[in-house]
């Protein structure tokens, strides 16, 4: 049974995670102005159709807004944190050109992304035990080959403190 809609591949997690534009921390708002008809806006329309979900997935804290049929020429506008605005003309451009241009001016570079990933790996040590949010495992009973959780399967008598203290008491 195939997925519904045209190009339903856009709605897969794998496609969303493959987006390569990660904006720098100063970019707060992204605005796309395009027209619904006309050949000039074709690249901008494809950009909105294919690339916007990827961008929003990778940048959940950036506000993305679309405006249709306001101006004759399509363009992108970015609002940065210090009040600066960046205008990117999209008239007659292909959607791949637009996304590459945007990545070059406002995206984080490969080295920065890899450095951030390294920092994240260093920060989270897989050997630690703790809450699921921060660590892989919570208790040793979750590991295969170790003593199972006494909440599920009662421990053998030799390991139970209660039994041991009872034995000690009845010895003398």
């Amino acid at each position, binding site marked *: 049974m195939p997925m519904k809609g045209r190009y339903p591949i856009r709605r897969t997690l794998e496609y969303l995670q493959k987006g390569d534009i990660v904006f720098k921390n100063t970019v*707060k*708002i992204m605005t796309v102005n395009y027209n619904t008809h006309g050949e000039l806006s074709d690249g901008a329309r494809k950009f909105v159709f294919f690339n*916007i979900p990827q961008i929003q997935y990778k940048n959940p804290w950036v506000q993305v807004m679309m*405006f249709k*049929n*306001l*101006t004759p020429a399509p363009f992108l506008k970015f*609002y940065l944190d210090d*009040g600066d605005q960046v205008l990117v003309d999209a008239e007659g451009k292909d959607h791949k050109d637009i996304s590459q241009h945007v990545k070059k001016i406002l995206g984080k570079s490969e080295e920065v992304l890899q450095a951030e990933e390294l920092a994240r790996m260093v920060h989270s040590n897989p050997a630690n035990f703790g809450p699921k949010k921060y660590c892989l495992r919570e208790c040793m009973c979750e590991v295969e080959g170790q003593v199972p959780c006494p909440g599920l399967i009662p421990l053998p008598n030799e390991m139970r403190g209660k039994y041991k203290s009872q034995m000690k008491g009845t010895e003398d």
Partner: protein
Amino acid sequence: MSVKSVSVHAKWIVGKVIGTKMQKTAKVRVTRLVLDQYLLKYYNKRKTYFAHDPLEQCTVGDVVLLKALAERRAKLVTHELAEIVYKVGNVIDPLTGKQVAGSLFRETLTDSMENPAGSLTEKLQELNISAATSEILQKPSEV
């Protein structure tokens, strides 16, 4: 009581003005794209913000850029008007700087009003010429 230094998470916001009935305050609707977990598709989710507008320059339907206030001004007012991005009915194309409506350029009236004195006498002469020619044309038709 502790004073909230940064009132909101969002420092800069773009939204559309939906109401201006409050004095010096604009009600702004902001849409953000939110992923539907099952469909994996992005939909617009609305949120209304109140923005301080001291000069009351906003009208309903403007697209507006808001900046977060350093301290919350009132119980609900958390942002202030930074700039009107697109004024309703008077959108200016950022690429050319001209007035625009949809996919057409609006022609401003001032272009036709240049050199009024000189053109009037010329136009009168033109009228005389055209009147003479029309009389000549009419005479053969009457006959």
